[in-house]
Each structure stands twice: as C-alpha cells, then as structure tokens.
C-alpha cells in the first residue's frame, strides 16, 4: 500500500493515479476485513473503489488526463509533512498496542454496546445498532452531509432536464457482449441492493451500502446503454426531491418520537414494546438513508457526466 501511495505521488498520468486510488481503496477494504470491520470494508469498497473512482474519472474526462510537472521546489511541503508525521509517530509511542483488550477504548463505553446491545436494540449486528440507535443522531448528520453535497453539486453544475442525447448512444460505444452481461446483471444488482437494505440488522450492510449499490446499477446501465434510458426511469429533476424526502423521512421518525413525548430519535416511542420500536425505527431510518444516498449519488453522477456530453 505504501508503494501505491508513493506511485501516486510520482505519476503524472492522472488516469493512472485515479485507478491506483481505486486499488488502494480496495486494499484498504481488505485490511478492514482483517481488522473485523466488515461493514466498513463493505462501504469502503463500494464508495472508495466504486463511487469516488467513477466520479473522478468523469471529471478527468472533462479536464484532461495529464498533470504538468510541478514548478515549485517541494522542500517546504516535505518539511511540513515530515514534522507532522514525526509528531504522529511520537504520539503513538504511548498508545496502547494493537489488539490489546485492556486498552481504554475497549474498557469504557464499548462494553455496554456489546453486552446490552442485543437486548436493548434487539438486533445482532451491533454496528447497525450503534449506528442507527445509540449514535443515530450522527447518522442523521451523515445523511444530511450527503444531502448537502448533493445540493452543493447541483448548485454548481445545475440540473439537466430530460435526455439531451439520443438513447442508445453510449459512452463506451456499442458492445453487444457488454450489453447482454449488464442486462443480466442489472436485476441481480438491484435485488442485492434490496437485500442489503433490509438485512442490515442481521448481517453487514444497511441503507448506505444499499443506496450505493442501487445507484451503481443505474450508473452501469447509463454507461453501457447511453444516458437517455436511465434518465427516463429516474428523471434528474426528481432525484434531488427524492433525496430531500429521504432526509425528511429520517427526521420525521425523530420528530414523531419528539411529539410523542420522548427524546428526538428515541425509537421506543414507535411501538408499545420498546425493542420492537427500536427495530421499526432502525428499519425506517435506514430506508431514509438508502433513498437519500441513492438519489444523491445518481444525481451527482448525472450532473458530472451530463456536463461532459454537452461540451
């Protein structure tokens, strides 16, 4: 991985740099698996290696592939980086060793999640339990961050109304094999997305990952079959409204409990049995996350790729 990072510094072919970044993300995801973080690995693979890379490539398509040789001498930056890095290494000297079960991180706060989580929130995937319930407000914030990014990109690039190019003219040309494969894969991808969406409380996954997978399905379709078709199914001018609805769904669940006399996002207000309420709440907010993420990722992709085809 260090090698990849160094290669990324040296190379001036931005296309290669972006692909290297994708590989790097994938390796990070593998590392996360090894460190027991399956949910994070899943997300990193989908986001870092998938979404980020695709978006960066779309941008490169517009702005050109080659970087010019830097003119400044890199000494000052090198100095800043060395000092910062040395400070970080210095800081880790007193840190608990990797995997030490006695570390404060494992002694405080976390034990309750591990011990009471399954009974209090009632779902085996503790990451989902912490994510959507104990720290559900952070996740609400995260949904808003994605929504903000969507608003920002649409402010910058505008929304393109309707299909502008003829359907059937695709970005990578006509390739029959690819078309057949994608047609066969698409239902599977969407099905898998649904599975991930509603299965997040048992296994790895959840609204965020599902949203990304769903969007990926459409991006793929768009790449292979031309933009017209994909845009007929989900018109760009409705995507950001869909995203807004997702955020409102999440917030609405919170407000429901608020008006029921409980704290904001206290899901136990949703049903008579608190654990049942938790379950329902988590399901609903994950749906909100999924909808928002799906529509924003797709909207951003449309906005970036739309620019390119007009130019």
């Amino acid at each position, binding site marked *: *991985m*260090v090698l990849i*990072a160094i290669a*990324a*510094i040296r190379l001036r072919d*931005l296309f290669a*740099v*972006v692909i290297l*970044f994708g590989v790097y993300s994938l390796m990070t995801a593998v*590392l996360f698996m090894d*460190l*027991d*973080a*399956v*949910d*994070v690995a899943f*997300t990193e693979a989908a*986001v*870092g290696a998938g979404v*980020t890379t695709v*978006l*960066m490539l*779309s*941008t*490169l398509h517009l*702005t050109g592939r080659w*970087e*010019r040789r*830097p003119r*400044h001498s890199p000494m*000052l*930056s090198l100095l800043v*980086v060395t000092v910062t*890095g040395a400070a*970080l290494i210095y800081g880790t000297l007193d840190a608990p060793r*990797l*995997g030490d079960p006695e570390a404060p*991180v494992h002694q405080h*706060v*976390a034990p309750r999640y*591990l011990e009471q*989580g399954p009974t209090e929130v009632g779902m*085996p*995937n*503790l*990451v989902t339990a*912490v*994510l959507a319930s104990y720290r559900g407000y*952070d*996740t609400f914030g995260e949904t808003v*961050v*994605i929504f*903000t*990014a969507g608003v920002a990109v649409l402010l*910058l690039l505008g929304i393109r109304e309707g299909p502008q190019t003829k359907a059937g003219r695709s970005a990578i040309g006509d390739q029959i094999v690819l078309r057949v494969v994608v047609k066969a894969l698409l239902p599977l991808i969407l099905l898998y997305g649904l599975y991930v969406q509603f299965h997040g409380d*048992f*296994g*790895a996954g959840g609204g965020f990952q599902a949203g990304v997978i769903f969007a990926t399905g459409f991006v793929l379709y768009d790449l292979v079959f031309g933009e017209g078709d994909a845009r007929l199914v989900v018109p760009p001018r409705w995507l950001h409204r869909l995203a807004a609805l997702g955020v409102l769904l999440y917030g609405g669940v919170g407000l429901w409990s608020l008006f029921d006399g409980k704290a904001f996002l206290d899901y136990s207000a949703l049903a008579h049995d608190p654990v049942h309420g938790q379950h329902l709440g988590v399901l609903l907010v994950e749906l909100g996350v999924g909808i928002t993420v799906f529509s924003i990722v797709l909207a951003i992709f449309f*906005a*970036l790729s739309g620019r390119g085809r007009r130019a």
Partner: protein
Amino acid sequence: MSNLPGLYNYWIAVCLMMAGFYIVISHGNLVKKLVGLALFQTSVFIFYISLGKVADGDAPIVTPGVTLYSNPLPHVLILTAIVVGVATTAVGLALVVRIYEAYGSVEEDEIQVLDGADDDANEGTTSLEETPEADRQ
C-alpha cells in the same frame, strides 16, 4: 497484517496519511490535490479501525459461540467519516469542473496568474497588495 505486534499498524497508517498530505500541499493540479485529500482521509480511517481491533476478536455481529468481539464504535464513526469523505470529494470535483470551464485550466499556478490579471483589470491600478493566493506551499 493484524498479527504483527505493537504499533506497526499505526505507523503504516501514519506513513500513508503523510503521503496523502504531501500530495495535497505540494501538487498544483487540482484533481490530484483531491486524490491526495481522499488518500489522506482513507489513511485516517485505517488508523481508527486499528483502534477497534481486539486480538482474536470477531466481527461485532452477534453469533452463537463467539464471546470476544471487536469494538463496534470506531466502525460506526468511520462509516460516517467515509460518507463525509466522498461528499467532500464530490463537491471538490464539481468545483474543479466549474473552474476548468471558467479558467480553461486545472493547474493552480496558471489559475493564479489569471486571478492576478483579474485583480489588475478590476482595480485599474497596479495594486500594492501582496498576492493573497501565495498559499502555504
């Protein structure tokens, strides 16, 4: 990798962070800056996830027969941070596209030259001010 003793994992993460940080502050190409930023952030995620690891622990999904789990909290934090990271990258890329359309370049120093020209055009006088774009680089 996780079986290696001690602080090794943190140090790798630090090296990667600094590689990303270096790209951000030393390179003039705006797209490359964003790649560096993403690299920087991803490496911080590795650092966090390393925190949550318990030796011989298992993924924090309750399974019968497993008693030792890794800490789920860092995982949750990093899920959020990944999302923040991709959101930042997306906004940055959109800005790059607009910059390219407005300036015809994505190289920092070329843009600065054009900015300087704009300043002079606006003020009609050779200004006394130092160029504020002189960045930290």
